[in-house]
C-alpha cells in the first residue's frame, strides 16, 4: 500500500486533489481511498488530505503518519507545519516552489523535488490554481499513476474548457518531471 499526504491551505484544492488521485488510481486498476483531515475550515488555514492506493481493498481508517509521498501545494506552510513528519526514508516530497530542492532544509531522508506549479498554472490555466498541476508532476515524479488517468479524472470533474486547460497543464507538469 502506498500512502500520500497532501499539505495545502484551505481553498487551494488539497482535498479535491486527494479525491482526484483516488479516482485516477482506481481507473488504473488499484483500490484507493481519499479523505480530508479537516481542521479550522477557513480559507488560508493549513489543511491536510490523504490518499491510499493499494492492490487490495483498503480497510484502514487512521490518518497517514508515515507517508510514502508528500505533496506540498504552498511552500509557506513549511514555516508552520512539519511537512516532512514521518516521511519514509525512500519516500518523496514534492514541493510547489520557484526554488531548487536544495533550498529546502528539511529533517528527512526522503528525496525532495520541486516544481513551479504556480507558473505552469498561471501560464496555461490563467489562474494560480495548482492542485491539478501538482498531480501531473506527482505522476511524473513517482511513476505511481498514469497521467492519462489523472487527466481523465480531472476532465470528468471539471467538464469543458476548464478541464481541457487543466489537462494541458497536467501534461506539461508531467513532461517537466520526466525530463528532470
Amino acid at each position, binding site marked *: 500500500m502506498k500512502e500520500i499526504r497532501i499539505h495545502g491551505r484551505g481553498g487551494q484544492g488539497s482535498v479535491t486533489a486527494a479525491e482526484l488521485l*483516488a479516482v485516477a488510481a482506481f481507473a488504473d486498476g488499484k483500490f484507493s*481511498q481519499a479523505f480530508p483531515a479537516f481542521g479550522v475550515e477557513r480559507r488560508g488555514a493549513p489543511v491536510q488530505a490523504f490518499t491510499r492506493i493499494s492492490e487490495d*481493498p483498503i480497510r484502514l481508517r487512521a490518518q497517514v503518519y508515515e507517508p510514502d509521498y508528500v505533496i506540498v501545494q504552498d511552500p509557506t506552510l513549511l514555516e508552520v507545519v512539519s511537512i516532512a513528519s514521518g516521511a519514509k526514508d525512500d519516500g518523496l516530497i514534492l514541493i510547489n516552489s520557484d526554488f531548487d530542492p536544495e533550498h529546502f532544509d528539511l529533517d528527512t531522508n526522503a528525496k525532495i523535488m520541486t516544481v513551479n506549479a504556480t507558473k505552469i498554472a498561471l501560464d496555461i490555466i490563467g489562474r494560480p490554481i495548482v492542485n491539478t498541476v501538482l498531480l501531473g508532476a506527482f505522476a511524473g515524479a513517482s511513476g505511481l499513476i498514469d497521467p492519462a488517468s489523472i487527466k481523465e479524472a480531472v476532465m470528468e470533474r471539471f467538464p469543458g474548457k476548464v478541464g481541457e486547460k487543466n489537462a494541458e497543464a497536467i501534461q506539461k507538469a508531467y513532461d517537466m518531471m520526466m525530463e528532470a
Partner: protein
Amino acid sequence: MQRDFEKDKKNMVVVEGSYAVASAVKSCRPNVISAYPITPQTHIVEDLSQFMADGAIPNCEYINVESEFSALSALVGSSAAGARSYSATTSQGLELMHEVLFNVSGMRLPVVMTVVNRAVSAPINIWNDHQDSISQRDTGWIQLYAEDTQEISDMTAQAFKIAEDPEILLPVMTCMDGFILSHVYEPVVLLEDDIVAEYLPPFEPEFKLDPKNPKTFGAFADPNSYTEFRYLQQQAMDKALKKIEDAAAEFYDLFGRHYGGLIDTYETDDADIILMAMGSIVGTIKDAIDKLRAKGVKVGLLKVRSFRPFPVEAIRNVVKDAKVVVALDKNISIGLNEGALFTETKASLYNTKIDVPVIGFMIGHGGRDIPTGTIENIIDEAKKVIDSGITVESQFTDLKEELL
C-alpha cells in the same frame, strides 16, 4: 458470505460516502425527504437536492425546513400519510430531534434517517464520535452502524425493508462515522434501481392519514394502556432481531454483499481475545488483527452492527469461550465512566453461566484519530487481563495527561 471485491470491482465507482448514501436513498424511491443541513451531514442532503432538481426522484417532495425539530416533525406527518420518508442529521441536530424521536417510534412510523455520527457540544467539535446517536438509544429507534461506505449505502435499503415490515413498523437510524465515512472517497457499487425494486416492495401501510377515511394518529394513552404501548414496541424490537438478519441475508441473495446481520465476526473462532466495536473503527481493527495473528496472537473481532435491538444472544454465542472481551466505545456515560457497548455487553453476560472478563476502552472522542498502534496497545492490555485479571475495568484511551 464473504464480500467478493474482485467481482464488485467492475461495477464500482469512486465517489464520496455521502454521495453513495444519497444515491441509495434515491434508489429506495422515497416520497418525502426533509432536509436541514448540518456538518458533516450536509453533502447527503445536497446530493439529494441535486437529484430532485435533475428529476431523478419521481413522486417525491423535498422539504426544506427551518430546524431539525421541524425536519423530523414533517416526517411524522408524511409517514403517517403513507409516504416513504427520509431525513439525515447529526450531533446537535439529532439532539434537537430528541422529543420527536419518541413520537416517531411511539406512533410506529417507519422513517429511515441517516445519522452521520459526530461529537456533541460543548466544547464545540464537528468531528466524529458516537455520543449523538448513543444518547438516543432509548427512543425506540432501531440503530444500525456501518463500517464502510459500501455498507452504509447498502444498509439504507435494508433499513427501509426492516422498518416497513408489517411486524416491525419501527423507525431506523443508519449510522455512519462523520468525515471518516461521509467525506471519504472510495470505490463503491451504487445501488441499482432495478434490483432495489425487487428487494424493497412499495410501502403500503395498513393505516394511513386519509381525508376520505379519517383516522387519529398519536392518540392519548392513560395509565390503563400506556404500559402496553411500550410492551408492544419492545415486542417489535424483539421481532426485529430476526428481521435484521433476514434483511441482510436476502440482500446478499440479490446483491452478493453481506456485512453480518445483527453482528459480524472476524477471526473469532479460536480467539482468546475478542474486541467489540461499532462503525468505521472496525476496518482499522481488522488490519491490527491481521498483523497480530501473523505473530501468533489469538485475537478476533465482534462487530456490533445492530445496537438497538441489542443482540444479546448473538454476543453471548461469540464470546462464551473467549478469555477476555474488550469493548471499544466512541461514547461515554459521564458519571459511570463507561461506554454504552461495554455496559450492555457486561449486562448481557451477567446472570448467565458465561464467565469471561470484560474490559472497556473509551476511544476516538471528538474525532481523535485511532492509529493501528492504539488498537495494538489495547490488545496488549487485554493480554494482561488473561494473565493477571482485571486491574482497570473501564478507561479513556490515549489520554493526554499534559492537558489535565
